[in-house]
């Protein structure tokens, strides 16, 4: 039953994608390998050949300003820049009301491990609450904190720390 629905959706999506080629085709992302739960893995199933399936994670990341919002040092408030990004995410999510997402909260390495797990949860929830206020149903959103376990950048400098203090929205397949 679930499988059937997915197949039908995928076919419809393919047809849609075929007749609306406004954007240049994006290259397929590098294949995702490695252990199952390495953190920020995209949704590889959104890709069919070179086509981006509408409603997929690939479509999401291509359509929104960014899938990532950043935070200040030890902060979890949504600043104007993050607001604009989340607005674009909310717009897309409201266009695909059946899509479920998870929001990953992350921290820089200059915090203790367990505090960072809690702070990552705070950040993910800030993004979630903002999206909910913009009409995205909380039942479609889950959060997970990785603390400082999965940095986007591995350096130990302010630029890397700023990039690592983030909440990443990922569309679930």
């Amino acid at each position, binding site marked *: 039953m679930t499988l059937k629905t997915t197949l039908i959706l995928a076919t419809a999506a393919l047809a849609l994608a075929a007749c609306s080629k406004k954007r240049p085709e994006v290259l397929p992302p590098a294949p995702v390998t490695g252990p199952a739960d390495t953190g920020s893995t995209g949704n590889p199933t959104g890709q069919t050949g070179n086509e981006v399936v509408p409603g997929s994670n690939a479509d999401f990341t291509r359509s929104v300003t960014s899938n990532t919002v950043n935070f200040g040092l030890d902060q979890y408030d949504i600043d104007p820049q993050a607001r604009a990004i989340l607005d674009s995410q909310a717009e897309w999510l409201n266009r695909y009301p059946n899509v479920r997402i998870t929001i990953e909260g992350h921290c820089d390495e200059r915090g203790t491990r367990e505090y960072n797990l809690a702070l990552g949860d*705070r950040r993910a929830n800030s993004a979630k609450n903002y999206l909910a206020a913009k009409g995205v149903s909380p039942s479609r959103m889950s959060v997970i904190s990785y603390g400082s376990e999965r940095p986007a950048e591995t350096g130990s400098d302010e630029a890397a720390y700023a990039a690592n203090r983030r909440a990443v929205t990922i569309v679930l397949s």
Partner: protein
Amino acid sequence: MRRFLTLLALSTAAPVMAQETPPAPSAAPAAQQQDGGGLVVDVEGGISAPMPIAIPVMPTQSVVNTPAGSTDALGRQLADIIATDLRNSGLFTPLPANRMRAVAFPEVTAPAFDYWSGTGAQSLVQGFVRANGDGNLTVGCYLYDVAAKTELTRQGFVVPPADWRRAAHKCADTIYARLTGEGPYFDSRVVYVSETGPKDKRVKRLAIMDQDGANHRFLTNGQSIVLTPRFAPNQQSIVYMSYVGKIPAIYVYDIGSGKQRLVVQNVATTFAPRFSPDGRFILFSMAQGGNTDVYRVSSQGGTPQRLTTSPGIDTGGSYSPDGSKIVFESDRSGGQQIYVMNADGSNQQRISFGGGRYATPVWSPRGDLIAFTKLAGNFRIGIMSPSGGGEKLLTDSWSDEGPSWSPNGRVINFYRSGRGSGGSGQLWSVDLTGVNERRIPTPLGGSDPAWGPLRP
């Protein structure tokens, strides 16, 4: 998997010794306190140098091949392990092997005091190795005061060959306890997180080893991120946090069977687990909607009981040794600070007031101190009293974190993180003086060390 060390009363259970008519144990000179022979090691540091101690190779009466090696080779290795334990405590300077002559078997209970006083050693450890008929090994362990020419203490240990190193650690513990007046800690294990790979794809595996790095074993395969393991008081299981199935949750790992079970049926992110001193409860943190509080749950599972309610991050709890209090960290005042509360969550009081932030408090098994991580530029390991007084920082590096106490409350394990893309974590230890800081050998990188209790 129940292997217990048998303690021997040497005078009766070691007949080979009996013919020597061993001297009466520990005949302390007159006017000494109950626990004091003449020879005492100063454990506060800074006053006296480490005590020179001689630990010659332990002879065997007959060379027998055992699953742990031949008894004469074991005699060399045992002496070496005892010397390493005592040296690593920072309180002893074992004589180098080339400054000690071989000890004949009958000499073990009748030391050549005149020879040993010429070596500069103040105390002397002699012992023997014997392969028993039942497959076990007996290790005898004798401590002498060289100047006073007296025996201070003696112990015998019967071990299965696989546990031969434990006999050395027990002997070192006997000597350490007798000469310092502190509790023993060498016969203990450490569970930690072994780390490999770059920071953004770090593979983390639970691993267990002896306190000195020997008998290292991996417990998980690295497919899921694992964090913050802690021993159960009975040392038969480990509580830790795992991302298995991409759901951050708390599990209990049974060391004997290798099986694990989920502790709290998952409704939210649960982390920072620790056992209560009696093993009946697991203290943990739960993040819900951006708010993190400290909870406790029966170690068998069930409904958690919430202990803190402040809006903010309350985490990192640790029980006092009597189980009556909990120390934890909270950012309710702005930044992370240390608080103490009753075990039921009542009477929450802030105890840290210095500059900077304070995190990861851990109550000493002696009850007299709280170890913590201080965040003020560098991350440093420090100690303070449970009322917040007497703060003392023990380390100063870019990123030291996660203190864990030795069973006797005199040494702290922690991990030191490396800076930059190539930086890795390493396990270190430091004693209460802050002077004796050492790297703990691990096969790969490491973090989150948790020092277990003294083994039975």
